[in-house]
């Protein structure tokens, strides 16, 4: 039968087979006399392979978009209500999808290569890419061969994947809805971060492919230029992928910061450091025609580390030590085979060619630029080793276990301190070396020039860093050294940049990149080292004896419309807000009345939402019912800096809380006020539990006429109108009152309802959450045209927030963009 799933599975198998076909074609092309013909045939089969891959994507998207929940992958990762962009990203929530993403980028790279002129390099690179495609497509094969599971198919039917009892009763059962995308991942970063990261993974194959080709072909010179270019590209793309992840963690996930030294983060940070080390090594090789071995080994290792990180995050081995690794799909064996095959291939060629790789007996001149660059490369390697060695602890336990032993070592408990305390020294060394080596790099300068070049940055560094250290004040030795090293890097690289720009009209892209890194380091130093909680509890009150001490001390309880001081700000909690579909901006929850039957809301009063007028009784849809925003108004107490009004003196923040209707899960996301000097990072710690029953005080009543003004718990109120509604049911009579309440400089509208049905009276109260008031229309007195309004009050609405200042965090992002600019520039220069 031709079901979509069968077609998809057919595409997977075919793409796997065709990857084998094109590898063989390119291999023959290398040996054959008809090189061009075989290359063309290889290209053709590669295109067929690519078409099948694209076909897999089309089928999966077809299944996701049509809510085909009989498929396990769709059931697991998507759901009906999911907006289209999250349906797109639900594709790569699972392992199978993320493998396919990687496969997809490989075909993009392959297509670029087969369209280049036929050369021994391009043929050989295609063979290496093919080998990777062969392994990657085997990961989604999903076939059982002699009881061995090969790959996990995204086209498995739910009934084959889950042995739920329902399938015994009804084998054709199809669930109504899928389990959906994890709320933590329902974010636009989920749409762009994984594709970028896997693009980074895919391009890392190029330096590896060139290095292996160099060994295979016995040509140690020809690979240098293209490998250098591909190293720059890999550094850029993987770097962007990593920083996107960091920004995602900072901006929405509320992990507290942008970097947590989680094994999954470490597993991509380490290859990135290796790429940078390889890039510097290959620059040396290019210049001196030396150190071929080091450059080859590093280019190979960068990719092997990508494979190792794939193994770590996907085999389930990190399950005990990581917050967000994938679950085990039972593919660890296959992943291990994958990793070892590539290690074996690399070692085989290295050993085979080791003696032929040219070396020079020339000793590196001590304290020359090359010498420092060399030290820099080794420092980067040590920096990476310091991270990957502890991250691999679970692997050591498994290895010991495999050989029958027992090992129970666990990663260090305070991982942030463990890693940061060591990395800061490596970073300081790198920053210093980047300045030193850059200045010494340009040979043939007169010593006079050199002294001039070095003395100025040194003096500037001394002055500026002592200034900062004394004024801020920085009083931690390792921080001082990092600050000093970073400033040295900025000024020395800056002077090189200026010198060559002025005298030789030449822009040093390396200097720009180094300056970027140094600025990033300063940003990291201040934002992490000097991040401070400003929401200290100064009131002397204990929020709640049941709270942990830390919560009582570092958080601020805000009652609705009662100002309290947080840092330099007066903060006012203005209430809960919702976002509407098709509108930007936030709307007070109290202005909306929920109509459960339609799953929509109607508006209780006219409202101006960011310039868009919406009117009373309009039907609107809330963007996501489970997301609530808490509007907080911040007013800077230090007025008189010239800016009046909105110029940073007053702003509103909307930290977000997302609940999950199916579980107790609550996701808190911060809102951030971005200033150049420092970010104010505000998030909700807790709020009145919506599921908890509200304790209402005693009832109070008042009898009023239409348009009469009265006091409702001290708020000036007017009974505006009374509407009667006739429903189809003749025995039912419905009266709705509309009461305007003026409070907190705004008008609230309460619409309690009075129902008579078969001589029984029912009251539907209306609750104004902001005011903590519940209003009933409790009696109609027809004789005097009066109405009895009854109300109950409760504790005012409140929220507990935490506010953290992150000084100079913008330097991290700015520095990264400067680094990127430098890398792009060098890429542009090598292209010419």
């Amino acid at each position, binding site marked *: 039968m031709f079901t979509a799933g069968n077609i998809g599975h057919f595409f997977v198998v075919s793409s796997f087979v065709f990857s084998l076909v094109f590898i063989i074609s390119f291999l023959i092309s290398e040996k054959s006399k008809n090189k061009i013909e075989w290359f063309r045939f290889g290209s053709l089969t590669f295109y067929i392979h690519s078409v099948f891959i694209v076909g897999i994507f089309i089928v999966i998207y077809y299944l996701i978009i049509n809510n085909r929940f009989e498929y396990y992958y769709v059931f697991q990762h998507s759901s009906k209500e999911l907006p289209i962009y999250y349906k797109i990203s639900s594709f790569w929530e699972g392992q199978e999808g993320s493998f396919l993403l990687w496969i997809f980028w490989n075909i993009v790279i392959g297509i670029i290569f087969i369209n280049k002129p036929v050369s021994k390099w391009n043929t050989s690179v295609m063979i290496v890419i093919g080998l990777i495609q062969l392994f990657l497509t085997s990961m989604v094969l999903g076939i059982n061969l002699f009881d061995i599971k090969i790959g996990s198919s995204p086209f498995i039917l739910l009934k084959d994947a889950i042995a739920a009892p329902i399938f015994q009763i009804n084998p054709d059962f199809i669930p109504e809805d899928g389990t959906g995308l994890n709320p933590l991942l329902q974010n636009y970063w989920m749409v762009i971060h994984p594709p970028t990261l896997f693009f980074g993974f895919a391009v890392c194959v190029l330096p590896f492919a060139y290095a292996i080709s160099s060994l295979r072909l016995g040509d140690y010179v020809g690979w240098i230029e293209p490998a250098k270019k591909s190293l720059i590209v890999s550094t850029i793309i993987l770097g962007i992928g990593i920083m996107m992840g960091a920004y995602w963690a900072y901006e929405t996930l509320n992990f507290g910061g942008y970097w947590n030294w989680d094994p999954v983060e470490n597993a991509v940070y380490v290859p990135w450091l290796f790429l940078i080390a390889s890039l510097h090594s290959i620059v040396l090789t290019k210049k001196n025609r030396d150190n071929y071995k080091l450059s080859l080994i590093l280019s190979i290792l960068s990719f092997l580390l990508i494979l190792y990180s794939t193994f770590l995050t996907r085999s389930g081995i990190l*399950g*005990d030590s990581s917050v967000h690794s994938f679950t085990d799909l039972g593919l660890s064996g296959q992943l291990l085979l994958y990793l070892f095959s590539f290690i074996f291939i690399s070692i085989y060629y290295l050993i085979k060619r080791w003696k032929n790789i040219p070396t020079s007996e020339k000793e590196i001149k001590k304290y020359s630029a090359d010498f420092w660059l060399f030290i820099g490369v080794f420092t980067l390697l040590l920096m990476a080793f310091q991270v990957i060695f502890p991250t691999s602890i679970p692997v050591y336990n498994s290895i010991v276990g495999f050989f029958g032993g027992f090992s129970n070592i666990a990663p260090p408990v305070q991982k942030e301190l463990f890693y940061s305390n060591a990395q800061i020294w490596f970073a300081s060394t790198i920053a210093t070396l980047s300045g030193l080596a850059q200045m010494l790099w340009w040979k043939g300068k007169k010593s006079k020039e050199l002294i001039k070049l070095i003395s100025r940055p040194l003096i500037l560094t001394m002055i500026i860093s002592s200034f900062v250290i004394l004024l801020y004040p920085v009083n931690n030795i390792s921080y001082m050294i990092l600050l000093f090293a970073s400033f040295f890097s900025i000024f020395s690289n800056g002077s090189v940049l200026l010198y060559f720009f002025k005298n030789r009209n030449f822009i040093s892209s390396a200097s720009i990149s180094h300056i970027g890194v140094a600025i990033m380091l300063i940003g990291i130093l201040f934002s992490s080292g000097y991040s401070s909680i400003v929401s200290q509890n100064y009131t002397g009150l204990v929020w709640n004896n049941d709270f942990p001490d830390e*919560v009582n001390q570092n958080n601020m309880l805000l009652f609705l419309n009662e100002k309290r001081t947080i840092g330099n700000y007066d903060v006012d909690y203005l209430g809960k807000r919702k976002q509407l579909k098709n509108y930007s901006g936030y709307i007070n929850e109290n202005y909306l009345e929920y109509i459960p039957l339609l799953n929509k809301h109607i508006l209780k009063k006219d409202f101006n939402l960011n310039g868009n007028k919406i009117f009373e009784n309009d039907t609107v849809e809330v963007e996501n019912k489970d997301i609530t925003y808490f509007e907080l108004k911040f007013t800077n107490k230090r007025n008189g800096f010239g800016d009046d009004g909105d110029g940073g003196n007053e702003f509103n923040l909307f930290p977000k809380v997302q609940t999950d209707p199916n579980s*107790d899960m609550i996701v808190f996301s911060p809102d951030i006020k971005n200033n150049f000097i420092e970010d104010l990072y505000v998030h909700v710690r*807790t709020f009145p*539990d919506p599921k908890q029953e509200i304790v209402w005080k005693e009832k109070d009543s008042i009898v009023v006429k239409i348009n009469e003004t009265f006091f409702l718990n001290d708020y000036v109120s007017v009974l505006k109108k009374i509407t009667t509604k006739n429903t189809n049911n003749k025995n039912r009579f419905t009266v709705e009152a509309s009461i305007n309440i003026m409070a907190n400089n705004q008008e609230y509208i309460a619409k309690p309802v009075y129902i008579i049905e078969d001589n029984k009276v029912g009251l539907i109260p209306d609750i104004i959450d902001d005011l903590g008031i519940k209003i009933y229309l409790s009696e109609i007195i027809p004789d005097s045209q009066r109405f009895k309004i009854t109300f109950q009050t409760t504790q005012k609405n409140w929220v507990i927030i935490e506010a953290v200042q992150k000084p100079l965090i913008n330097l991290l992002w700015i520095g990264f963009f400067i680094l990127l600019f430098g890398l792009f520039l060098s890429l542009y220069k090598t292209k010419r």
Partner: protein
Amino acid sequence: MKTSYAISVVFISIVIIIIITTFGDASTYVSFSEARSMYNIGNSSKIHVVGQLNKNENNEIQGLINGKNKLSFSFDMIDGNGKIESVFYGEPMPPDFLLSEQIVVIGSYNEEKFIANEILLKCPSKYTENNIKL
């Protein structure tokens, strides 16, 4: 060859330093009873305990107590040896906690309770439910 030897010696010694400090700062995976005996002999270092939520036949989670306003909570955890212990965590319940198939708590005993400083969960990327909600 002198310089490269010097560089290698320094490089290797730093590698050794890294290895030693790693094992020096490394924690251990233990069971509740081992953690208890560590506490009894006055060893207050933080350790890892791997286990699962305590669920009954109907897949209902046992022993879960939410603190006031869900700012803290405690739960029953079964370690690898089947020992059930109450664990207190002074932070709100992590997302996906109830869906986790495996839990790692990092912390130590403090009198009667096991106090977790950190909780790691296995399964946050996926809901591997064996029951389909109808």
